[in-house]
């Protein structure tokens, strides 16, 4: 189980970066949902999910992002994925999500999208 490994780090008043650890699956997807919805409730418009260390993404993990992204978009923000590995990207493509979710190659590109110059 990897639920302890989901960490959040505040970048600005509007932007939070979340790192899910190695696994985002049925064991910890609810923690990701809570992390995101809690951040949205606190007014963070942009949530960057840095997937650099992510080795496995289950459908529940996908759902934790897909089911929460609309709330961010409704207030002019977004959930942005970055550092997505080829295999994780493959799963997103299989579910037709690669064009629907916002995916950036690097954290720097994600930050730029949020209006933050690193």
């Amino acid at each position: 189980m990897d639920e302890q490994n989901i960490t959040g780090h505040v970048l600005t008043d509007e932007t939070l970066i979340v790192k899910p650890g190695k696994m985002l699956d049925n064991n910890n997807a609810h923690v990701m949902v809570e992390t995101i919805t809690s951040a949205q409730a606190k007014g963070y418009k942009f949530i960057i999910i840095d997937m650099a260390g992510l080795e496995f993404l289950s459908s529940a993990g996908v759902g934790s992002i897909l089911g929460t992204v609309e709330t961010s978009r409704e207030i002019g923000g977004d959930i942005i994925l970055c550092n997505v590995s080829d295999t994780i990207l493959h799963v997103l493509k299989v579910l037709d999500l690669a064009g629907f979710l916002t995916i950036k190659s690097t954290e720097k590109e994600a930050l730029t999208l949020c209006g933050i110059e690193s």
Partner: protein
Amino acid sequence: MQIDHVVTPTLLVPADLSDNAVTRFDGRLKELLAKSPMSIAFDVSQLENVTSSHIKLLWQAYHVCLDAGVTMKLKSLSPGLVRVLKVLDLYELLAEDHESMRPQLRKAVRIKPRGVPPPYADEFPTDSRSIDEALEGFLKYLRRFTLPEVVIFELRTVFYEVAANIRSYARMGDDDIVVFSARVEGSKLIMVFADSGVPFDPKSTTVDFDPRTASKNGQTRGFGLTLVRRLTDKMSYVRMNDVINVLTLEKKWN
């Protein structure tokens, strides 16, 4: 010339799997193994209505015999049991006559890294730790083949999603298990999952999926079987004896 007559001891496999019956069976098996026989015949004539618990008992007995270097032979198989073992891909492993092949040799064949790959089989309860362990075992099996990394990832995802789905929806008891088998045929893998949970045909789920609708509805669950259907080439489901769900999946590559 003196001829030694080797008598194969016989052990009756009970249809009733109460704690007492299983304890008696285990005790009797231990007694027989202590005598170091070449083989033990398991009389399965009472297994007319086979459940996953019977399969679990046979599977565990198979491993106990294997570890003791004793050949397991099934005797008086009912057509129902033959059908269940064949559907689960366990017939060859458990029921075929391996008279000339000692278990140690069979074990060696099972871990042989090249040549015609043997089938893989496992059983596991549906708590998350057991699923993770079973997944690790399956991945080790897959690594014996020269498969593209993305195919291994897809198969890992398929295994995980099916097992997690059984865990979430089959309403299995703590003692219930999933019997899993896999075999490679050319450039395709056939996976079979069997469980004794509530009846559920995964083929009834849709492969259609609209991200916009799911997102607007705030849907966070329920994508697993869609993913499985999209990652596999063929899916079939049967409910056997009104007790066992058997899901067969086929995945091709190349």
